């Protein structure tokens, strides 16, 4: 109703304007065709230009003052302080140029507006003047280039690696993974072929140097030390952006890039200085990388060097943390290997929240472990209760469509596995359809043992791999 009213009002307004305009034109036509006479409008426009400039300057000043507190967030690196200084110096120079040229640009139209009977000054050129205003910007540019080059060369002059705390950063859709070299201070090799759902960074696990590498969930940096970031990506281009440290460098698949800097303020110092007790340094992505480009956040913590040492020493190596899923013979913490022969022997508790599919920031699939008897594809009662969860989810969210993928472990004939997994997926679909879900909202697929969740032959791994995955489709 309200919308209708608004539309009606707008239509009416447009109509009135149209009529007014038509009348105005008709009068114009009656008066005369186009004459080219310069009327009072010329004066109004001339004054308008002047007013625009003055009001614009005032608006510029006040908006600048309001926005200023957020400009160039407090620099927290050595080179950042220098580039900030340069930024403001360049800004001052261009502001002067802006003011000088604009004063002329906006006052001349006012001063030299059309006057009946006046003649413009025939002034086609003046070589001296032109020389001068070619040279002037050339000199200013030279100064700017010289400043920039000096700074750029310092920033891009990398110190030897041994002097630095080395951190490997890898971007992926959509998040970051980082790795430190561990106690031996030697980073293991990596290869994109070794990447899987556990080993996100493709760390080469046969390289002894990898054994103590650790991959924390946030970056820690020691204050006052040289930090070397070794940057890469495993899928599309991302860009490491640490706004407070004035650090930005693309993460490129197949090509290692790097950046170095020295942090100058700990997180604590920064919190005190800004008066924000919950302040954190952040890392963001600044190269468009897909759907959740805007959400690639990782927290960065700058510690005093001693704290950093403590933190560093307390980190558990990656292989140790993930020993069970990596299925590695790890000395420090042997995994208990269950050897039940029953394929359903290892229970995995699914604490699955299907809602993640709804607002999934990345292409998400949810793994469910629905138990089937060996070589069987009909649903047990226990299995049905799990499928019921899918059912309620689909009823709640009327628009969602799901693909249901069956997966088996790697025992037995791959071909048979595939058939079996497909039948199981179909069984789930059929059950859902029987309960009233529209058929076109569901799709069944079987992958057999082609896409294991984790590598390895342990029962733990097999149990993880026997699963059903739900994928949102369009």
């Amino acid at each position: 109703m309200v919308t209708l009213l608004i539309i009606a009002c707008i239509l009416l307004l447009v109509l009135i304007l149209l009529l007014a305009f038509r009348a105005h034109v008709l009068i114009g036509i009656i008066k005369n065709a186009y004459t080219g006479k310069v009327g009072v409008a010329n004066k109004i426009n001339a004054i308008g230009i002047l007013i625009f400039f003055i009001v614009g300057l005032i608006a510029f000043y006040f908006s600048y003052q309001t926005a200023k507190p957020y400009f160039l967030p407090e620099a927290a690196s050595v080179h950042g302080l220098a580039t900030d200084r340069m930024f403001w110096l360049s800004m001052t120079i261009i502001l002067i140029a802006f003011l000088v040229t604009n004063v002329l640009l906006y006052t001349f139209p006012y001063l030299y507006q059309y006057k009946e009977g006046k003649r413009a000054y025939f002034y086609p050129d003046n070589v001296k003047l032109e020389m001068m205003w070619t040279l002037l910007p050339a000199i200013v540019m030279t100064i700017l280039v010289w400043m920039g080059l000096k700074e750029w060369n310092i920033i891009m002059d990398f110190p030897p690696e041994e002097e630095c705390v080395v951190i490997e950063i890898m971007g992926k859709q959509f998040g970051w993974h980082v790795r430190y070299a561990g106690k031996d201070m030697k980073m293991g090799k990596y290869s994109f072929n070794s990447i899987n759902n556990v080993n996100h960074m493709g760390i080469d696990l046969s390289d002894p140097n990898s054994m103590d590498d650790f991959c924390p969930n946030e970056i820690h940096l020691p204050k006052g030390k040289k930090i070397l970031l070794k940057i890469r990506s495993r899928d599309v281009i991302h860009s490491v952006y640490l706004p407070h440290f004035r650090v930005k460098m693309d993460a490129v698949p197949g090509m290692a890039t790097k950046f170095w800097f020295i942090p100058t303020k700990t997180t604590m110092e920064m919190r005190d200085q800004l008066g924000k007790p919950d302040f954190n340094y952040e890392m963001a992505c600044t190269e468009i990388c897909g759907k959740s480009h805007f959400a690639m956040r990782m927290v960065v913590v700058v510690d005093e060097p001693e704290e950093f040492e403590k933190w560093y020493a307390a980190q558990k190596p990656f292989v140790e943390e993930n020993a069970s899923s990596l299925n590695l013979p790890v000395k420090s913490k042997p995994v208990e290997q269950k050897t039940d022969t029953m394929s359903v022997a290892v229970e995995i508790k699914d604490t699955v929240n299907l809602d993640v599919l709804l607002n999934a920031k990345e292409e998400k699939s949810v793994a469910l472990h629905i138990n089937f008897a060996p070589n069987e594809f009909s649903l047990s009662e226990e299995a049905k209760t799990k499928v019921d969860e899918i059912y309620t989810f689909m009823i709640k969210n009327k628009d969602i469509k799901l693909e249901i993928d069956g997966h088996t472990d790697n025992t037995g004939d791959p071909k048979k596995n595939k058939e079996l997994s497909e039948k199981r997926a179909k069984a789930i679909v059929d059950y859902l359809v029987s309960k009233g879900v529209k058929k076109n909202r569901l799709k069944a697929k079987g992958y057999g043992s082609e896409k294991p969740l984790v590598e390895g032959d342990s029962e733990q791994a097999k149990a993880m791999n026997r699963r059903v995955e739900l994928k949102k489709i369009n």
Partner: protein
Amino acid sequence: MAVVEAHTQHLSSGQAHAHDEHHDHHDLPWIRKYIFSEDHKIIAKQYLFTGIFWAIVGGAMSLIFRLQLGFPEADISWLKPLLGKWITPEGKLDQEFYLALVTMHGTIMVFFVLTAGLSGTFSNYLIPLQVGARDMASGFLNMLSYWFFFLSSVLMFISIFIPTGPAGGGWTIYPPLSALPQAISGSGAGMTLWLISMAIFIVSLLLGGLNYITTVINLRTVGMTFWRMPLTIWAFFITAIIGVLSFPVLFAAALLLIFDRSLDTSFFLSDIYMQGQALHYKGGSPLLFQHLFWFLGHPEVYIVLLPALGITSEIISTCSRKPIFGYTAMVYSIIGIAFLSFIVWAHHMFVSGMNPFLGSIFMILTLIIAVPSAVKSFNYIATLWRGNIIFTPAMLFSIGLVSFFISGGLTGLILGNSAADIQLHDTYFVVAHFHIVMGTASFFGMLAGVYHWFPKMFGRMMDERLGYIHFWLTFIGAYCVFFPMHYIGIAGFPRRYYLFSSFDAFKTFTELDAFISMAAIFTVSVQFIFLFNFFYSIFRGRRAPQNPWKSNTLEWTAPINPGHGNWPGEIPHVYRWAYDYSKPGAADDYIPQNIPFSQTPESNLPHEKDEE
């Protein structure tokens, strides 16, 4: 597309009328005269109408994503009839579709509006009329050029509606994102259409460009030496040369990308693991694509801007009733900019991982290009000095252009500095910079051109008062939209972000973002004043006199509605440059180019006499 067709038809009725009056029509079937026409004037209008159509589409897209940026919490289910499944059940804009909108907006604005719409319209319309030629060197190729553009437009337009959505990897379409459909849904069929459409677009542009170049070189009328050409022609001429040299590089890049996408080659791809799978690509370089892209991409910004500057030179001189100041310097700075534009491309790649030494070199070259640009600005201002200025809408838009050119050019000095660019790269500071210096400036040039040459194109005048209102609202609006983006950029906000609240560092400025969005809605809305004025005046505008602005260039010596061949009799000869405004001693304050010196003894300078 129907819109365009319809316009073309309307146009034809008006034109047929004109033809009857002048009794100069050839017996061509209707379709050859107005649809598959070889007449540069019709082709120019076809470009103009298509360009306007695209500007509406591109502008509408910017409003949709500005809504998201300004009011991220708002429920926009009411857009569902328009956007369908791209509005999520919660009433939010789909994240991938946001990127697709940004991508299409950039592509449309840069290529379809400001390259085809601007260059295509005015190069086509003005080159033959201002150099004194009956038509383009090859009318047939010129016609092909438009229809290739049309085809490319159709494909790009279709891509907006396909189920997986249009291309979404940014207008720069960096692989691997643009190469792998798994990476973003827009990289599926949408990207394929984007690449094919752009390839066809390049063909169109090359056909057009070669024609412009040939026409300027070969078909100038008697006496029209290079150094007597109006600056518009110089600008179109040099622009065409830049286009012909740089667009084939984009063609190559697009082709290699097509190979990577469909033939499993690895030109740009290497070491990729995606969605649970290690892909087979090996040894390609994503940076190679960036070099190829920007080898076109940077010259492209001058392809967009130079014609606008040429148009402005002409208008500022005419409406100040003064010769353009430093004509020779203006020409040399166009040439200088054109040359330098080829060797600054890597300033877009300072932090791409390329060798830092290259960064140093490209910083130096980039800052050199600022010199000829500065010269141009100074010369504009000097032209205004002691003029007798008449503010036509075209003049106002030209002054607006100079204002934007200065504002945006200056921030370029900061971005060209590689050390400062580390922080500012890919932030809103860049968005502010290029919208002002290239987007808005060129847009103003285009509008100025339409206002100025409308009487020539349609034989009628646009309404001046509406023109003034349009100018003032647009000028104020555009500054309100793009100036505050500097602030957001200096605060470090990255571009191509769907939402800023995911970071503590980017949570400030929500109000400013809302303000910008409202200003954008306002600015886009007031363009309807222009559209109304434009279409209304085509049919109902006051009849134009032959030379409404008392201008010196040749097109105003042609009949009010020039027929095929432009001049009914002999093509006028040219005796002087285009800028004899307010010459001391002359009776009038302008002396058209076709008046021999022998007729103006009272105003001739000592060295000026006819060569014949």
